[in-house]
């Protein structure tokens, strides 16, 4: 990753975290608010593959852990697994298809929220499973499905050459797979 890409990436992480903690907190449905930060590893995985997704997920999760009173490292772990998982699942898919980003955004972030709650409960935060998890998952998944395409574009811009090389690799892999 180039220094410019690192600066852009940090700016995107900070910007989305600010958006999450300002406008996002006002958008409450059934007591739950959106969690746009989970879209960063999804967008990074779609743009740059498993490795980039995992790194961006770790960074985004650590940023959340630093400003919220959540168990330190938990968001980083879930973000890393989310980025790697999405990168793995969509490895052979055509990323330019319009539905890939929204579906990956909704399904990936829904899985991340559930994993976060379960791991939190394992770490002694039992209240994470006592909240209305269905409402939280639904709100996060729907909002992230809608926001997935713009966030993925922003991530592709932020990653720059890393995203481009990921795209080239996947295109090469698809050509090899085709009969």
């Amino acid at each position, binding site marked *: 990753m180039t220094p410019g890409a690192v600066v852009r990436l940090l700016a995107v992480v900070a910007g989305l975290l600010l958006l999450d903690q300002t406008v996002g907190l006002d958008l409450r449905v059934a007591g739950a608010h959106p969690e746009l930060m989970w879209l960063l590893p999804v967008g990074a995985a779609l743009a740059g593959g498993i490795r980039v997704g995992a790194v961006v997920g770790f960074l985004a999760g650590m940023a959340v852990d630093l400003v919220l009173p959540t168990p330190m490292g938990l968001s980083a772990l879930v973000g890393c697994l989310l980025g790697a998982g999405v990168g793995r699942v969509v490895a052979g898919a055509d990323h330019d298809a319009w539905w890939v980003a929204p579906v990956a955004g909704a399904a990936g972030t829904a899985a991340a929220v559930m994993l976060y709650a379960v791991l939190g409960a394992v770490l002694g935060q039992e*209240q994470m499973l006592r909240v209305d998890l269905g409402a939280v998952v639904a709100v996060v998944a729907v909002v992230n499905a809608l926001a997935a395409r713009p966030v993925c574009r922003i991530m592709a811009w932020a990653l720059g050459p890393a995203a481009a090389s990921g795209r080239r690799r996947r295109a090469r892999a698809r050509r090899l797979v085709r009969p």
Partner: protein
Amino acid sequence: MSRTPRSRRTVATVVVLVLVSLTVITVDQTGRTHDLTAGVRSVANDVFSPLRQAVDDVVRPLGDFFAGAVHYGALQRENENLRATVGRLDQQLAQRSFDVQQLRQLTTLEHLPFVGSLPTVPAQVTALDMSNFDADVAIDKGRDDGVTVGMPVVGSGGLVGVVVEASHTQATVQLVTDGQSRVGVTFGGRQASYATVAGEGPGQPLAALFVAPGTPLHRGEVMATNGLAGASFPPGIPVGRVASFSTPSGADQMTVRVDPAADLAHLTYVDVVQWQPTP
């Protein structure tokens, strides 16, 4: 099947990041690096809080617009009810502005009977329920104003929560409704009984634990902090009022639901009580 070098590098990166995350979680949970993580979080919040406040000031109207759009149906019903209410009250009440309401809240905070002579720091709530999984609020006072971790926070009505994180300029308060919150309480007048009031999550009533079957109780009974030796709160702060109670057959304790004494849904100003538990 052999892996390519790129594939091996990818697996290695993911494994290293997972291990780093697990290490951070483990050392944080064991409390060995609590000072370090608290310090890092404090610095992060010192940087993040002013940015959040600035962005909040700019985009809050936008958020209100979207919130209004999302809750359009409920807002319409509420609007109709409010119109009817306003019509009834119009001749009885003088105009009550938002400023007057806030002033009243502040005035009430100045005369909280249960705080007694303990020094307090008035603070404004800047963010509510920042995570979907916790019940917490951010306030605009931090260590520079004498607010430190462990201090009780009260509002008009009673106990709001406890400071769990404090940076130089802001602090995070864990509300009594948070699932991790536990408060030792007393109730019952002369024949004092003791219990632990536990949070059940944002917006949920509290639960009073360890109330023996047959303990005299009545609805509306006030449960206040007990202030026993080593307690986390000074004595006499109202925590909640009994909303319902029952004893399931065969149970060794009563099921008691408690409504928070403080109005946690409309927190604007709070008082941080400069009191620390004795170790």
